[in-house]
């Protein structure tokens, strides 16, 4: 009886040994674990693959004007992706908090930057968002609040960028909401992007990371970048690489390679929902995978890239 009573007291002591309303600790290095979107996160999406993107007409037109050579222009080489890239990029996360030296309350959480994404600072001290006319930055301005064990954040003041690495655009009027939840050593972020300029509906993506004590993600700050001249046009050209309306040569590529109708390839909100499959009744899968088949590291020849050759 004494043992039972002692155990009960011990349990209560352990239970009460932490603050009653402590939120989850997000600090640490989180390794990328999601087994989704390998191609988009790795080599990059196919050109003109807007499947499942709620682009409006303006967004689609802007996306179709995109020419990859544009990224070689000095003016574009050092542009970071938008904070939304957290849920579509390939890397792990380094998350840290900054404490108030007097109260020990969390002032902010920082999601460390990558080579191509700026640091996201999540302000937890109740400060307001800047005025609409305040400068926009690559990292945007983010505030956060705990809703139970979920950290909900809201980001404004982002620079215009892309939401898919094939030119699908996001404007500087976009806002992003993230819900960050932790279950054991798994961290999941669901991000919702709203853009009155290029999207007809919110664009939602989610992704999971795993706590990784051996993770080496550098110092968690975005990398410096020095633009250099990569193109012969150098200092004389007056043309920014682009495609005029109706001239994008890649519009039919996904149809030719995967039998997917152009109506789907060009995206739009309706492509996000199950009922869109009724418009795909004529679809027949290709007989065999011929590129990016995802079967590397098995010790047998396999098509792992766009060459179509087993390696």
């Amino acid at each position: 009886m004494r043992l039972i009573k002692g155990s009960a007291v011990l349990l209560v002591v352990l239970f009460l040994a932490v603050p009653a309303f402590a939120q989850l600790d997000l600090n640490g290095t989180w390794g990328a674990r999601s087994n989704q979107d390998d191609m988009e996160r790795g080599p990059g999406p196919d050109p003109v693959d807007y499947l499942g993107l709620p682009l409006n007409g303006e967004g689609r037109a802007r996306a179709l004007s995109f020419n990859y050579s544009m990224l070689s222009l000095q003016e574009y080489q050092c542009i970071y992706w938008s904070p939304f890239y957290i849920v579509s990029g390939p890397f792990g996360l380094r998350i840290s908090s900054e404490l108030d030296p007097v109260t020990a309350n969390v002032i902010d959480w920082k999601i460390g930057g990558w080579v191509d994404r700026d640091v996201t600072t999540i302000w937890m001290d109740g400060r307001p968002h800047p005025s609409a006319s305040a400068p926009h930055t690559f990292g945007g301005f983010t505030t956060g609040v705990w809703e139970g064990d979920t950290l909900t954040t809201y980001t404004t003041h982002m620079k215009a960028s892309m939401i898919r690495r094939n030119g699908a655009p996001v404007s500087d009027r976009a806002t992003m909401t993230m819900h960050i939840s932790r279950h054991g050593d798994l961290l999941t972020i669901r991000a919702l992007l709203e853009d009155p300029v290029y999207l007809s509906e919110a664009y939602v993506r989610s992704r999971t990371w795993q706590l990784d004590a051996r993770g080496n993600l550098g110092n968690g700050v975005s990398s410096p970048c020095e633009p250099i001249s990569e193109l012969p046009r150098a200092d004389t050209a007056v043309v920014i690489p682009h495609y005029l309306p109706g001239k994008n040569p890649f519009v039919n590529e996904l149809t030719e390679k995967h039998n997917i109708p152009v109506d789907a390839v060009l995206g739009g909100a309706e492509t996000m929902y199950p009922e869109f499959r009724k418009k795909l009744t004529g679809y027949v899968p290709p007989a065999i995978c011929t590129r990016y088949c995802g079967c590397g590291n098995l010790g047998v020849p396999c098509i792992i890239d766009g060459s179509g050759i087993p390696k």
Partner: protein
Amino acid sequence: MIPGALLAIILFQATAGKTIAPIDLTGYWVSVITQDWRWRMVTPAKGDYQSIPITLEAKKAGDAWDPAKDEAAGEQCKAYGAPALMAIPTRLHITWEDDNTLRVDTDAGLQTRRFHFGNWEALNSSPTWQGSSVAEWQVPRTAQGTAPKSGALKVMTTNIRSGYLRKNGVPYSAQAKLTEYWDLSTESNADRWITITSSVEDSQYLRQPYITTLQFKKEADGTKWDPTPCSAR
């Protein structure tokens, strides 16, 4: 005498799953396919294993995929088992079947999952497509005597009949274990979303846990519910 805080914990664990539910998952939900579209909305090519950490044995099985053979054997539902079902473009209808059983129906494939709370133990039965699921609420700590108003649902599923992780025959075995965390969140425009963090472990066909996240948006009613049988293609 048992202290109040401990008693509260004991009572929380012993009370029916419905009674203590910190979040309401019931209603109609639609999957929103913004990720892996080409591998979920349509059946990808044979031999396309992208994103799945398969073993060599899984590749051999996948390379031998034959949907006509599955149809002939009446096994059109092999891609609708618990480890793959939530990734199928579908609508969910979630209801409480009884105080300790949360029921999830899908219109795609006409499947039913049952999440059992409390001290439920699976019958010693043959594996099924949806297996045996044990559920528990995960709630943040609250002040003594205060019921939690947020939380998540953890579901652990075993005893699953072997099937496909993807419609093009990427396999999982009968030893597969599925662990899911169901989170509910509300946007500023009052839209409600379920996010499912899913992890499939299968030492036969997976080199490491197969981890995905899936999202469902709440719908006002079931007017778009569209019952459709399983398809092997």
